[in-house]
């Protein structure tokens, strides 16, 4: 009786939450027995895939460009969430992005490598390079680890500024473009879907289990005979490669790479998006990005008030749904709620 409890003042009611029958025993184990139940599981996934594939068809050129940036930040959010799930609090998204950007830019500018090869190369080498840069502080935890990852991009900016390598403050321009906006949009959409479902699948394997274990209790993982530093380095490589990938992509999208590639925006935005959407699920990171990024574009109309309004909205989100929007929606989707009499 969802409403009548308000009129009936004599007795007390409390909200009872029950899992739907389809959820058997554990969080990740489902018992499928009909097409309807299969649909229940497929529906949310289908919304993401079909929605993303349709968007470039219905949006105009300007909003398609916004969509591209949103997808880029979404991949950075996924990368942050993945590294966080592996027990590392990273502020290094700008590092990953910048290293990937400059690698692709340099490959294209100095050696004329086409985007077809410079993007994959920058992804792999960028991931490895970032891992090597962070390797010495892998033993640090929490805020100490975060501080080092935060400082690294600033150091690289200074080096490029002072030495003038890689185009110095002017950057490298007139790089090879990606053919047209359609190719650009669908390329990044497919990449986003691949990273999203790939990360989710990876975390469900026993390998992902070890990564989650490291976040939960690293001493217990060590006592289980597992070298946590080796696994952390692997997780950094995977997350770093994802960040380097979008960096390389943006270099060719803008046909330019410069110091803004190490901008703090690429660190702060993904974290804000993930926190608003909900951490630890990847879907939350996606959802948060697809709420906040278009929102910032809408708010362009109100000029400088944008920042005030935007910050205000973020505070509201965090106070109203501290668990994250995705966790809230997931709970509503998987559980019944009803009022039951307590007295």
């Amino acid at each position, binding site marked *: 009786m969802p409403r009548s409890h308000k009129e009936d003042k004599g007795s007390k009611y409390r909200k009872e939450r029950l899992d739907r029958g389809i959820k058997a*025993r*554990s*969080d990740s*184990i489902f018992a499928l027995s009909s097409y309807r139940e299969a649909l229940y599981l497929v529906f949310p996934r289908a919304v993401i895939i079909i929605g993303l594939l349709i968007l470039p068809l219905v949006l105009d050129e300007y909003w398609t460009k916004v969509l591209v940036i949103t997808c880029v930040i979404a991949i950075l959010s996924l990368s942050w969430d993945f590294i966080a799930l592996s027990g590392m609090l990273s502020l290094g998204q700008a590092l990953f992005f910048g290293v990937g950007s400059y690698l692709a830019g340099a490959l294209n500018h100095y050696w004329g490598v086409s985007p077809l090869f410079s993007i994959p190369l920058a992804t792999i080498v960028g991931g490895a390079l970032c891992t090597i840069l962070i390797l010495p502080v892998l033993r640090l935890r929490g805020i100490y680890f975060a501080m080092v990852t935060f400082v690294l991009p600033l150091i690289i900016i200074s080096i490029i500024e002072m030495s003038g390598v890689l185009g110095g403050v002017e950057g490298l321009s007139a790089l090879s473009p990606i053919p047209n906006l359609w190719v650009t949009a669908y390329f990044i959409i497919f990449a986003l879907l691949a990273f999203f479902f790939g990360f989710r699948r990876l975390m469900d394997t*026993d*390998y992902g*289990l*070890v990564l*989650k*274990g490291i976040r*939960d*209790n690293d*001493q*217990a*993982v*060590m*006592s*289980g*005979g*597992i*070298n*946590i530093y080796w696994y952390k380095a692997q997780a950094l490589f995977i997350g770093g490669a994802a960040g380097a990938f979008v960096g390389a992509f943006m270099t060719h999208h803008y046909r330019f790479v410069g110091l803004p590639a190490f901008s703090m925006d690429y660190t702060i935005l993904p974290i804000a998006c993930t926190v608003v959407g909900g951490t630890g699920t990847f879907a939350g990171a996606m959802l948060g990005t697809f709420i906040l990024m278009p929102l910032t574009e809408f708010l362009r109309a109100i000029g400088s008030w944008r920042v005030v309004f935007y910050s205000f909205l973020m505070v509201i989100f965090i106070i109203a749904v501290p668990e994250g929007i995705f966790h809230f929606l997931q709970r509503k989707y998987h559980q019944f709620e009803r009022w039951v009499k307590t007295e």
Partner: protein
Amino acid sequence: MADHILKVQALKKSYGGVQAVFDVSFDLKEGDFLGIIGPNGSGKSTLVNLITGFVKPDSGSVFYMGKDITGKRPYKIANLGIARTFQMAKAFHELPAFKNVIIPLFSPRVRKSRGGQYGERDDVAIDLLEEVGFERDSAVPFKTAGNLPHGYLKRLELARCMALRPDLIIMDELFSGMSMAEVAGTLPVIEKLKVEGATLIMIEHRLKELFRVANRVIVLNYGQKIADGPPGEVMETEAVKKAYLGSEE
């Protein structure tokens, strides 16, 4: 070589001015069941941390099967076959109980040794949980570890150890916080491990239960070994009585 599975020589460790472990030495034969007892703060847990590599000793050495393992990293020592439980149960609170056991099953040691009898990791994990007393057909093995009662968490620790198929198991106050029924249910599991040929070290405050299974006891006080021998004899020693009951002046 092989007659001593573990050889601890003159281990020392101090924190600031406090000597947590001072000059402790002992040998352990294969198949032994050693109990380590002593008042609170006498260095028992530090000794375990020194042996398993979680803390590096100031001096002294630890040999395992004739191999020097002093100051090696914990995961390397675990892979050699020394498993331990923690005094404060260290479960993966966000994972279901059976997934907790899968993490050691993923270690190089187990993956290398997986023969025909070691099946799917999920099944092995649930078998192990059943062995330590998780009801197989109930929801308990699938519950998130953070929601389990303390007694279950302690037994989960033991299951995580057993997953490594270790040759030496060190249990740091496994029984503390367990109910009488839980202790009674866990003792046969430990006795079975002993029968199967594992060497065991047990730190325990519950002396009655410990003396039922241990064939040798070491008593620590202020980081020093003050007695070593069969349980009955050790408790009659003057130094031990003093440490436990206080001197009579």
